[in-house]
């Protein structure tokens, strides 16, 4: 029995759940009571600045749901997919558990409390107030990089799944059309939301069932424009075709009124997504009953801090376990993006200060559980030889869930493929929208025009996704995201220092994240620079070199190296502002006392 149980992902996932429970029930309560001294009688911005639009008290359960929906996307799925491949499942699992315990929820909760104590302001104005205009500009520049890089990685993952699971795009089209129909029913025809939701759910599941039942609908086939090519390869015409299809969707999402299409599509898309997430978490814990075992190739690779990863030419798509594991898994362990969410709508609508713990901390811990279930899903599928595949998660999730609810592996494979595509698609549709808004503020005319700025985002995203290496892009994404996290934690430390409160629980995680992330960005820059200096190309870029010549690859790598240098310098400058600001406030507090 013991052998059987420890052969399954269940005990490891349960261990994570227990640690998360301790984090929520004890550590977060300690911080909430002793450091922030949350007081349910102190008026929150929702009550102080009540306007019925942005500031008004909302139940903690509603806000928890909203916060979770806003922070959980493809991040806790893609990160573990790459990390488990390169470093084994144990380091990935440990980072998810320990990272979330000491850093993840700490950031989400603390930034939310900071915003509550600062009139519900978002990160930009708080950074401006504490550290000055330059620090805010660096924050916004990071935001631009973040939006571009994550767009490129998600585009690659979406295209890989569409290409790898023929026909999976059909249910996606059904969801996109259903989104429009739902919006029309609710906002134009004034149909009751519950009835419209039922119609939407029937249509969404009909799309998935249709493509599962009718095999002739599974078109176009894998690599239909590139006969002879196996897997999804950069620079292939099929990938370009799907990227152009995505471009049209992104552009429409960016320029059409939100209420007509984007908002209803997000709603319709999240319905199956939430169902998918809940089922896979249950299926992961239930593996000690269903008996789904850790795949032998994964069991043979529990953890690996291979010294070979120090060779950037031999292993260009990864790197040493420190710092690279800590940027490979961002969401689920710690993600800077969440600090921007926590200081937005949620902090303005908290009814009581004490609600920040379940809303900010609770939502992040729930996202950690999603990350754990992703590790479980990857543990049960075979480890590929060279690169992690974007299909690892849908295949693993289908294996886990089919053992619990045996509707057939094909049904679940399509369900989880559609889930991955739609989660990536709707978050990218929101990203292009945010980019449009940021561009309107930061870019000069005509690049700030609402019809032009989405095209800039789409062009760079398509270029990077088509010709780049997705795991390297993911590491840059992790770099920008985790540096945002380090920044957010240090901003909280500066804030607490200015309030003469203890700072240790945010200062050390913040310092760790900044040092680790700067090292990761430096490593990634070194990888590209080493290739350029030696005239080498990354192994995954070979198809690009064959098709378009090595010069284009070198150009792309030079661009990536410049990306890295810019990110590193900006990160260093930000770290300087943060540390000097922190010690300035600390010394002021000491003098005053």
């Amino acid at each position: 029995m013991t052998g059987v149980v420890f052969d399954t992902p269940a005990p490891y996932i349960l261990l994570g759940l227990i640690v998360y429970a301790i984090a929520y029930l004890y550590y977060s309560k300690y911080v909430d009571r002793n450091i922030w001294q949350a007081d349910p009688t102190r008026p929150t911005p929702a009550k102080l600045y009540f306007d019925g639009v942005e500031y008004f008290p909302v139940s903690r359960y509603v806000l928890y749901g909203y916060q979770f929906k806003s922070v959980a996307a493809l991040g806790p799925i893609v990160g573990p997919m790459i990390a488990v491949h390169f470093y084994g499942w144990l380091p990935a699992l440990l980072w998810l558990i320990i990272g979330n315990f000491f850093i993840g929820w700490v950031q989400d909760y603390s930034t939310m409390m900071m915003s509550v104590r600062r009139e519900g302001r978002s990160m930009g104005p708080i950074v401006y107030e504490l550290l000055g205009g330059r620090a805010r500009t660096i924050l916004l520049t990071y935001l631009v990089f973040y939006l571009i890089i994550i767009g490129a990685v998600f585009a690659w993952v979406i295209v890989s799944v569409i290409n790898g699971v023929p026909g999976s795009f059909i249910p996606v089209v059904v969801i996109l059309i259903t989104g429009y129909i739902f919006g029309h029913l609710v906002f134009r025809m004034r149909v009751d939301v519950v009835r419209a939701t039922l119609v939407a759910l029937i249509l969404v599941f009909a799309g998935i069932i249709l493509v599962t039942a009718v095999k002739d609908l599974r078109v176009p086939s894998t690599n239909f424009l590139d006969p002879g090519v196996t897997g999804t390869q950069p620079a292939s015409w099929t990938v370009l075709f799907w990227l152009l299809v995505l471009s049209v969707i992104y552009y429409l999402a960016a320029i059409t009124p939100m209420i007509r299409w984007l908002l209803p599509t997000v709603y319709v898309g999240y319905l199956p997504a939430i169902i998918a997430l809940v089922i896979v978490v249950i299926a992961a814990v239930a593996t000690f009953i269903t008996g789904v075992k850790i795949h032998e190739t994964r069991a043979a690779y529990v953890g690996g801090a291979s010294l070979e990863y120090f060779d950037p030419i031999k292993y260009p798509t990864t790197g040493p376990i420190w710092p690279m594991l800590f940027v490979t898994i961002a969401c689920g362990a710690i993600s800077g993006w969440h600090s921007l969410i926590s200081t937005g709508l949620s902090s303005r609508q908290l009814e009581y200060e004490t609600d920040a713990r379940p809303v900010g901390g609770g939502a992040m811990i729930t996202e950690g559980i999603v990350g754990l279930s992703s590790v479980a899903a990857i543990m049960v599928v075979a480890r590929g030889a060279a690169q992690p595949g974007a299909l690892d998660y849908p295949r693993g999730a289908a294996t886990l869930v089919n053992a619990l609810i045996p509707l057939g592996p094909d049904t679940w494979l399509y369900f989880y493929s559609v889930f991955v595509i739609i989660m990536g698609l709707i978050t990218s549709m929101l990203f292009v929208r945010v980019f449009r808004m940021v561009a309107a503020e930061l870019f000069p005319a005509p690049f700030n025009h609402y019809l032009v700025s989405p095209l800039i985002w789409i062009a760079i995203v398509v270029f990077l996704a088509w010709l780049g290496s997705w795991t390297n892009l993911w590491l840059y994404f992790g770099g920008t995201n985790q540096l945002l996290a380090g920044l957010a934690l240090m901003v909280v430390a500066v804030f607490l220092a200015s309030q003469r409160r203890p700072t240790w629980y945010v200062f050390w995680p913040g310092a760790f994240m900044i040092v680790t992330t700067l090292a990761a960005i430096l490593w990634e820059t070194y990888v590209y620079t080493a290739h350029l200096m030696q005239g080498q190309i990354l192994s995954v870029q070979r198809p690009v070199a064959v098709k378009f010549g090595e010069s284009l690859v070198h150009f792309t790598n030079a661009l990536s190296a410049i990306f890295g240098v810019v990110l590193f310098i900006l990160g260093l400058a930000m770290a300087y502002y943060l540390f000097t600001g922190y010690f300035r406030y600390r010394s002021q507090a000491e003098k005053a006392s």
Partner: protein
Amino acid sequence: MGERKGLGFLSRIKDAISEAVYGIALHGQVASIKRMKMYTEYLFMLMTIGDMMGIPIVPPYYTLRLLPYMVPNIKGWKLRMLRERDVTDIISG
């Protein structure tokens, strides 16, 4: 949360779950729609009673006719209109 005190444990769980589902599915949309409505109202209020915030407009006949309908919104309008806004505000929806 005071209204929950009289409910049984299961009812409270049911309420909490339904509120969380609402939060996941609809709260963000409702917030966006409210914001859209707010910006549309800005235009209307500015055109009619913008002089209350120092924007010089000649008070027309219709402003006085509409004033009774606008009075409940004036306080919130001033609060929102004069609030500092930042790019990072838009991220959460």
